[in-house]
């Protein structure tokens, strides 16, 4: 399971990571090795096993719509490299608008 450098660059771009050429090579090797490991699952005969999205035998795990207290703001922000007006401060992203959901 060998990833191409293009695939590595694509994934890095999606994660907004800038990688040097050397890092791209390193990531290719490491990601390929991880994928190769997981790829071992393909060797199993799963013919008789129904596909599933969840391995826990649970369903409808939910809670009532009640409000509980949130974290104190100091704790929310305590690991923020930059904070401002009670908010996390970041460089304005490309385009500046809110992300679409």
């Amino acid at each position, binding site marked *: 399971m060998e990833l191409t450098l293009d695939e590595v660059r694509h994934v890095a771009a999606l994660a907004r990571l800038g990688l040097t050429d050397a890092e791209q090579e390193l990531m290719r090797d490491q990601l390929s090795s991880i994928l190769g490991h997981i790829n071992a699952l393909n060797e199993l005969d799963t013919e008789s096993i129904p596909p599933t999205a969840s391995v826990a035998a649970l*369903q409808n795990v*939910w*809670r*009532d719509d*009640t409000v509980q207290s*949130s974290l104190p703001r100091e704790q929310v922000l305590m690991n923020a490299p930059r904070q401002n007006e*009670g908010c*996390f401060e970041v460089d304005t992203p490309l385009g*500046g608008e809110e*992300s679409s959901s």
Partner: protein
Amino acid sequence: MEAGSATVIMVQFAIFARSLETGRGVEIDVTETIASTRFETVIGLEVHAQVLTKSKMYCSCSAEYASAEPNTHVCHVCMGLPGALPVINREAIELCVLTGLALDCTIAPFSKLDRKNYVYPDLPKGYQVSQYDLPLCQNGTLVFESNGEPVTAGITRVHIEEDTGRLLHRTASDGSDISLVDLNRSGVPLMEIVGEPDLRSPEHARDYLIALRQILRYIGASTGNMEEGAFRCDANVSLREAGSTEFGAKVEIKNMNSFRAVERALRYEVERQQGVLEAGGTIEQETRGWVDARGVTVGQRTKEAAHDYRYFPEPDLPPLALGADIVERIAARLPELPAARRARFVEAFGLGEPEAAILTGERETADYFESVCESAPAEGRSRLAANWILNDLFGLQRERGLPPDRMPVSADQLAGLLDMLEADQISARAAKELLAQLGPGETAIDKARSLNLLPLDDDDAIRTAALETIEAFPAAADDYRNGKKAAIGRLLGETIKRTGGRARPDAARAILEELLNSPS
């Protein structure tokens, strides 16, 4: 008309039902649509509506984000700290299913949540928990009216997801652009309602949205407030040769923040695409943003690879299996929907279509009207109640700056006032004054008494006023005695005036006649 013939100009007089947005006053909007006979407009809408719950979608933080100080409704779950375990808000699921039921969708017996991955500062986890291939609701319809014609539009799906945080943009002291991240909105439940490309004009799109918003408000699933961002709409617009069954390249329009903006943006975009096609150009599939101040759509720089979301099943949330029993219980929450209620109001209360539409605009108003009518099912009550609500209460509501779903007096108070009118206990003019003065908790009858608005039932007092009048106008009295019966009009007016306007005309007339006819 032949395909390819010259562009015709259609002038449309659209009644713009701003009522649902601002109150109710119906505004006439004279707009020009340049319609081409060569092309057919194809529009599909994608609506995001915040689900009206107290707490967030996957944690127990308060979902009330608008009024709170930044980052005060935030916990380890909704700020995406590693190891946090989300738990589904059952009410959000129920309201999403309720929406699906109101839109005639099939409710999935088995559904799951999926992670939609992308990187942006307002998304702390780096993914949004949404639904991919197994949404809660699918294959519905929305029937609405546009220019007096019923239109049926398909609903592709309704699924549940979560909102993102908010970014506040600032300029730093060194002049660079910075953004402040407020996560109060992060994790607020959101429904995505995807419509089929069944809309054929910007007016359709507007009326579809108005009808959808009204349904969401009726069933209590969302406030539908567009200005506050609780109801957001993106549109896919394309044109195709008339008669063609294939779709043209579609353009996605964003940033439309009011019903008016949706209509204007779509009208602009249809004309823009028409212009490009008629000049022999081609439409490129792209995302464009509506710039309200300039009245144009402009191409947006698309975030690279924005469509590579790498969805996968959310491992922290077990799937949902909504059996028939659960769905049935949710269905029991469905109220009578706006269209049905409107039709019933016409049928049961003898109202005209436009009146029924306005009275059922908000569920609270419709409940109010019915409650006032039920208190006295007598003939004429519904007519009287409708008139008073449409003319006087809405006027007072606007004057006092009340939201469209809040009436200036209670249904009991209005019923009391109408009881008095029907029993001829108060004049229409006095009743209007009474309405304006009626405070919370006061009954109409007590207030009328304390304001001296009730007719004078004291015959002695009327008799005194009548005697004074006869003395003051002896000529008129003589005229009457000599057979000029019309002369009593003058005396009657004066007598009523002397009682402060409170004497009932028939009572005053009887007393006057008695006095004038008796030998003096």
